[in-house]
């Protein structure tokens, strides 16, 4: 495909205090191609795109856009020159309407034509099937919807280069397909698309070319069809990976305890999940399956009392307990890793150490601070265990890459050694290698007697670790699958048919 080169980045270097995020990276994007940017967590993918779109300033290197060297000092300049971005962490304004979020910062008119804007927005939303109204405040949309709005905005921007930084991490299969259709359309129009994701299948489905980064260095650029999946993974990880496939065959542990570790009857919460029953046994891993917005997160949040619980009865090891606030749940041995990392997971300005010990510390109580030495020990232990890439314990967690932040939160909960751990999308934004590690970890924890709930938008991932699957539809539990019945086919069917 000898098509015209639209963007050339040469010798890009970027360091943050204590980290070399990019070193001498070259990158070439052609007109009308979808170019996947691959790498492990912290490889520097986001950083590279952020240098391109003016969020960060590069330390060294050249950016040549359509043959002309450019130097963007702000996303605004980049946008004006035709570089559109969907950021990894959604960057929209919650206090503006959906339509405004789609159009703000784009027009150079001194005045806003509301009617026209709303009409255009409604059209876009309609054609993309985004369930939101143009005049609705963005804050009232779910993350997934916000993500789609961000995409809609970028797509509508009429740009030459479109950067999609993990756009699919919170979308379900349907929407991913919709997005891909759009990407193909844009590609046909000659837009160069940089696509970042950790879903390898998606890369092979849509991309033309792959650039692999590792530890801030360029590994190479490849034509997608010419690079076998296994090789891609090993290039990303820097080692031959035989256990990727080996992993798939893990047998979920079965539990035979009679009394469930956790049992809920008629549980409901203020955000409107229908009252539901749920139980989990010692050493069991179960999952919640369902479409986007089917209420999976809401259900587990009710278990942890993350939203106000409005009714229901809860038993732990057969004993009735009251869980009114997250602290109750924590004290009873429940842990919860929320799906929205940015607003509910990390405390971004606090150090990695403080973020890791947070939950344990809170459980110990206000008057019993861990000694510094102890805290450091704990933190180091988990940094090693989960291979968290951080320059130091004192680094604020916000300067870690998305995936490493996620690991920090995981470490936080593992440190409390819960009896029952709820993981809501723990692998979102995590690279393949680590994903596998996490799945293994989950199974190991279960073998050691921990009960886990594992929610993921990738069904096969759940199938790999869960021994029982609870299927939800429209905020209601419609059925359960386990044992031999637990197949992708059956899950899909149940979601589609709503139970029987």
């Amino acid at each position, binding site marked *: 495909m000898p098509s015209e080169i639209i963007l050339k980045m040469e010798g890009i270097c970027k360091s943050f205090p204590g980290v070399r995020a990019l070193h001498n990276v070259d990158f070439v994007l052609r007109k009308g191609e979808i170019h996947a940017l691959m790498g492990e967590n912290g490889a520097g993918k986001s950083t590279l795109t952020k240098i391109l779109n003016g*969020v960060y300033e590069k330390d060294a290197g050249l950016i040549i856009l359509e043959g002309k060297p450019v130097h963007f000092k*702000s996303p605004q300049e980049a946008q004006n020159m035709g570089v559109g971005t969907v950021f990894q962490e959604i960057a929209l304004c919650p*206090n*503006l309407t959906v339509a405004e979020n789609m159009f703000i910062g784009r*027009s150079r008119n*001194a005045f*806003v034509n509301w009617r026209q804007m709303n009409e255009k927005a409604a059209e876009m939303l309609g054609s993309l099937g985004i369930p939101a109204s143009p005049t609705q405040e963005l804050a009232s949309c779910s993350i997934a919807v916000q993500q789609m709005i961000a995409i809609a905005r970028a797509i509508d921007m009429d740009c030459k280069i479109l950067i999609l930084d993990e756009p699919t991490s919170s979308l379900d299969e349907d929407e991913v397909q919709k997005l891909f259709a759009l990407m193909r359309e844009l590609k046909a129009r000659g837009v160069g698309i940089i696509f970042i994701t950790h879903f390898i299948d998606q890369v092979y489905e849509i991309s033309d070319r792959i650039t692999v980064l590792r530890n801030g260095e360029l590994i190479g650029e490849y034509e997608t069809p010419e690079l076998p999946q296994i090789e891609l993974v090993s290039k990303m990880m820097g080692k031959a990976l035989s256990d990727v496939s080996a992993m798939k065959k893990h047998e979920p542990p079965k539990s035979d305890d009679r009394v469930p570790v956790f049992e809920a009857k008629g549980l409901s919460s*203020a955000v409107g999940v229908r009252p539901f029953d749920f139980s989990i046994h010692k050493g069991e891993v179960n999952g919640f399956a369902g479409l986007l917005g089917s209420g999976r997160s809401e259900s587990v949040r009710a278990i942890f009392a993350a939203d106000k619980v409005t009714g229901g009865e809860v038993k732990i090891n057969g004993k009735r307990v009251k869980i009114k606030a997250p602290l109750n749940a924590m004290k009873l041995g429940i842990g919860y890793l929320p799906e929205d990392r940015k607003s509910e997971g990390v405390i971004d300005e606090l150090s990695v150490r403080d973020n890791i010990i947070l939950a344990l510390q809170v459980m110990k109580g206000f008057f019993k601070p861990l000694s510094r030495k102890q805290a450091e020990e704990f933190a180091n232990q988990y940094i090693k265990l989960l291979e968290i890439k951080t320059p130091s314990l004192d680094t604020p967690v916000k300067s870690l890459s998305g995936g490493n932040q996620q690991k920090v939160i995981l470490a936080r909960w593992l440190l409390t050694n819960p009896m029952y751990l709820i993981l809501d999308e723990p692998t979102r934004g995590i690279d393949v290698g680590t994903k596998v590690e996490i799945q293994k970890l989950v199974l190991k924890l279960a073998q050691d007697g921990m009960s886990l709930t594992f929610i993921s938008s990738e069904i096969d991932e759940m199938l790999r670790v869960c021994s029982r699957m609870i299927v939800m539809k429209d905020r209601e539990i419609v059925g359960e699958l386990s044992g031999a019945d637990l197949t992708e086919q059956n899950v899909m069917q149940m979601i589609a048919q709503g139970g029987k």
Partner: protein
Amino acid sequence: MGALNPNKTKTRMSNSTLLFIIAGIIFLVMYGIALLTFPLSFKQFQTFFDFFNLNAALFIVTLGMCIVMIGGGIDISVGAVCGLVTMACAVLLESGAGDIWDALFLSLGIGLAFGLMHGYLIAYLEIQPFIITLAGMFLAQGLLTTLHREPLNVTKPAFVALRSVRIEIPWLGTVNRLGVFIPCEIRPGVLVVVALVIIYAIMMKWSRFGRNLYSVGGNRQSARMLGINVKKTMFFSYVLCGLTAGISGFVFLITTGAGNIGNGSLFEMKAIAANVMGGILLNGGVGNLLGAPIGTLTLLTINELIRAAGVQSNLQAIVSGLLLYIFIMLQSIIMSLRDRKNFRLVLPSWLKLHRPVEGK
């Protein structure tokens, strides 16, 4: 998912609108109660007009403050700048060095200068607004005392003529103690207030700057990512606020006719209070510009209520604090009630999307 028809989605009222409506209703209710309890005072139209006539400067300052508050900032120098302008203009006019136009330009110039300084330091050097505008306040006060310490009356005939301009409304008015009919009158400052309210309201609702400011106030980081020039937007909000404070100084001078060290003192606090009552949050990103005059009216109505009720001197501050308290509580309770209930009311059941917005 595709089955979801976006047209079915009913729109939830935005925080700004809701707060504005609360502010409006509370003001109306309060004024209604005032009318019933103290008809003697409140039934006279002139009472209402006097709110504007005598407090035009406060209204204007509040507008400027409203803009920076929507942008997520704060400017506590406004009162001092207003005071400085009155004195500077008084000195200018009294010394005979300039005429009214010069004075007007001087007030705009001073306001602009402060606005530029604040804007630059806050937006481009990223210094905390509270501190910089506090310094701005000290600076204005210091300049004022350096300029002239004692009260200074402006006696220049042209100015005196300007400041005695009245627009009479012959068909509205009251009969006073001696049975003389006094028509209602409006002073020139009021026209400035009305003009500014209209201009600013249009600006905040329809101009790119206005919308950008909302987005910057809501989330600075996101605004930048959306391609908004955050620094420029913030910069302009402070420039505008400074400029507005300058205008208010001139209007203040037209209202009272003298430069004085006490002019505009505590305006910043009043403006903040008024804006909050008008539904503009200090966090930024939320509020309707029209809330600013509504809030100011509420504040002034509280004053007039306290006067008419003859509240004991030492209790006046306490009572006005208490009324502010009740007001804020009402606002907060309504907001939290809505957070609990409103979804069921406005949205179809399958669309109950709710997750508390971070940062409240």
